[in-house]
């Protein structure tokens, strides 16, 4: 991306614009992280409480029949699956806790399954599910539409769910297919 960007900038004489955009971008990255610190502390703190109280284990038991198939390598370890479930559920409900819980699940998976192929497979599955953004309650868009005077702000919830499901399934399928191609290299 940097190569393409620099090349375009040189060819079109927009080097100055590009430079200031890059400096802007790195500042935005820092602002974004600082802005997220509070939310991360809150949600990972709540997750820790739920973990110690046994709620995460319970969640994992409930979700095992559904999500267990997608995460075959997590095995008997309940903690990672519970955290994965919490994150995916947050995503489906359109809650802000999705990302903090997702990263927590990533670190649990790394601890329990490691960084080998199996670990990376489990982590990739979670990333694809959350990047696909299957969401039944797209609160941000509904709020935006309502604020701009829509008479049916939630009309798009159904289509958004269909599209999100397609993005998630398409991504998971692509990951499987690409796996064979990447391994041959």
């Amino acid at each position, binding site marked *: *991306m*940097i190569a393409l*960007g620099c090349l375009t*900038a040189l060819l079109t004489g927009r080097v100055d*614009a*590009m*430079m*200031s*955009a*890059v400096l*802007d*971008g790195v500042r*935005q*990255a*820092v602002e*974004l*992280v600082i802005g997220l*610190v509070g939310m991360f*502390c*809150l949600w990972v*703190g*709540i*997750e820790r*409480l*739920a973990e110690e*109280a046994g*709620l995460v284990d319970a969640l994992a038991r409930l979700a095992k029949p559904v999500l267990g198939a997608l995460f075959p390598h997590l095995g008997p370890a309940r903690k990672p699956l519970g955290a994965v479930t919490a994150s995916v559920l947050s995503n489906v*409900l359109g809650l802000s806790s999705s990302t*903090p819980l997702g990263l927590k699940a*990533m*670190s649990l998976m790394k601890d329990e399954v490691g960084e080998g192929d199996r670990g990376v497979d489990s982590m990739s599955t979670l*990333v*694809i599910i*959350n*990047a*696909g*953004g299957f969401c039944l*309650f797209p*609160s941000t868009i*509904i709020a*935006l*539409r309502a604020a*701009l005077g*829509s*008479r049916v702000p939630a009309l*798009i*919830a159904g*289509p*958004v769910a*269909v*599209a*999100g499901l*397609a*993005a*998630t*399934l*398409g*991504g998971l399928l692509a*990951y499987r297919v*690409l796996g064979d191609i990447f391994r041959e290299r």
Partner: protein
Amino acid sequence: MYPLAHLGSYVFPALLLGVPAYAYAKRVPVYETFVKGAEEGFKIILSTLPYLVAIFAAISCFRGSGALDYLSRGLASVLKPLGVPADVLPLIAIRPISGSGALALTGDLLRAYGPDSPVGILASILQGATDTTFYVVTLYFGSVGVRKTRRVLLSCLIGDACGFAAGFLVWRMLMS
């Protein structure tokens, strides 16, 4: 009105109150445990900073140089014949790359055409069809220090394309 559209605003306080209350009933030291978890959350998000700086630099370079506009024009030559309105093409190009950029663009389209117009509805659907792929992949893998992410990124982008296609098809059915 979609009856469950505000479910999120009930779940949030329920978790905020319910989890500590349940933990207290289970005799978990609530404050100490929460603080330990919060400290962990602090470390997790800070550890992603180098990765986010790198990807934001790359993305800004791509946008600021005008390369994104070329990508969007390239997309146009493929998608226009399929009946995708020209105004939403930049949104498709930017959606996987920048969350705030895409949201701003959706806002512009809704203001210009009206949120309940055909273009407004399509823009809303495409905005919700997928999450900001580059951001999610960077953040998640950055937090655990895994760098082999090319296959995942490619899969997610293929997934995004599926999501956009499905969103567009549903929109056509809604409009006809």
